[in-house]
């Protein structure tokens, strides 16, 4: 009963806070970033999960995360992640937190729009949200409880390049990550994505299931080795169709199925996410 009351209270607060119009511009991708930042003064609350199905009869895992994204200004968006993990027959646990910042150095729209990304991660080896894939080698197979004992402070940088080509968004991300807790050198990764709205003209009436509310695309991401192990053998790569549905002007539901492309990759990655956008501050 207390839980129900708490949930009702949270929903009531969200409704009260979002009495004014604000629109979700949530990207369709799960891994790839485009050049659109959170609108200044908007707070986006998102919950999502990555479910992985490894090869060789290893147990599947699900890694949920909560994401709070805030538009500090037109050129700066900051984001906090809290993540967990649960593995079939192998327990669950907290996997850490991340603080991400994205900066847009150029104003206006260009043929290629750069965004600089800096993230600090305080996570453990049980982290499975796979928001980025770097380096080489498959995921560790030890029990979650054991992996959680190995903590890591990591610094991650990305160069995000994003373009509008006709009705398409085309984005490329180059990733470099440094584990500050261990001497693993610098690890590299990438992600690329293309997506487009399925609609063109906006209809004059409110609609939920109409083409203009859907964005579809595909993204690919993977590791590119490290300064310690430059060989690309044993790197993980995925190709993943993505679909986003702007259920209401404020909320977006998105899904993706990633297909492992190499021997070190999991067989599938199933991702589901829901985001809700709130305006903070007045007109």
């Amino acid at each position, binding site marked *: 009963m207390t839980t129900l009351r708490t949930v009702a209270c949270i929903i009531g607060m969200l409704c009260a806070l979002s009495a*004014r119009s604000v629109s979700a511009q949530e990207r369709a991708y799960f891994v790839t970033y485009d050049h659109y930042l959170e609108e200044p003064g908007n707070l986006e609350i998102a919950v999502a999960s990555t479910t992985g199905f490894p090869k060789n009869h290893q147990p599947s895992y699900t890694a949920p995360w909560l994401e709070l994204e805030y538009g500090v200004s037109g050129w700066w968006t900051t984001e906090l992640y809290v993540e967990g993990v649960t593995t079939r027959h192998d327990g669950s646990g907290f996997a850490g937190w991340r603080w991400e910042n994205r900066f847009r150095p150029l104003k206006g729209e260009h043929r290629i729009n750069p965004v600089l990304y800096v993230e600090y991660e305080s996570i453990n080896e049980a982290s499975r949200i796979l928001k980025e894939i770097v380096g080489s080698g498959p995921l560790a197979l030890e029990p979650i409880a054991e992996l959680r004992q190995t903590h890591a402070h990591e610094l991650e940088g990305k160069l995000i390049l994003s373009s509008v080509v006709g009705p398409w968004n085309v984005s490329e991300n180059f990733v470099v990550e440094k584990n500050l807790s261990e001497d693993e050198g610098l690890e590299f990764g990438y992600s690329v994505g293309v997506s487009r709205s399925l609609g063109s003209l906006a209809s004059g009436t409110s609609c939920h299931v109409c083409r203009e509310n859907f964005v579809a695309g595909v993204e690919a991401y993977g590791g590119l080795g490290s300064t310690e192990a430059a060989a690309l053998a044993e790197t993980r790569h995925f190709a993943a169709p993505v679909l986003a549905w702007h259920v209401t002007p404020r909320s977006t539901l998105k899904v993706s199925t990633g297909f492992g492309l190499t021997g070190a990759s999991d067989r599938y990655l199933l991702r589901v996410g829901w985001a809700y956008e709130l305006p903070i501050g007045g007109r």
Partner: protein
Amino acid sequence: MRERDPAWVAPAVEASKVNPLGGRADAVAGGRKVFHQRCATCHGEDGRGGTKAPDLIRPDAQAQTDGALFWKISGGDSHRGMPGFSFLPEAQRWQLVLHLRALATAASPDRSGSR
């Protein structure tokens, strides 16, 4: 009230673009809906602006060409807080321009909304 940035000017080639939906009365309602969803938070439902965004009905704002408005909607001015909306299909951005003209016409019935 947030003032319009006079230095933010569309390149001539962009400003000369003509709204391909000009005269499409059926497209205005869609522009109104997109404006409500994307723009009204800062500019207000009536387009009169506020502390976060300038008045879009003022004569100096309306004096801009359709192409200039489309260019500004598409690219935004991120360093002054105006997001870009190039993620919207091109047709929807032109619908927004149609709606901006309709707002001005509604505010001043004797003024022509087309350019």
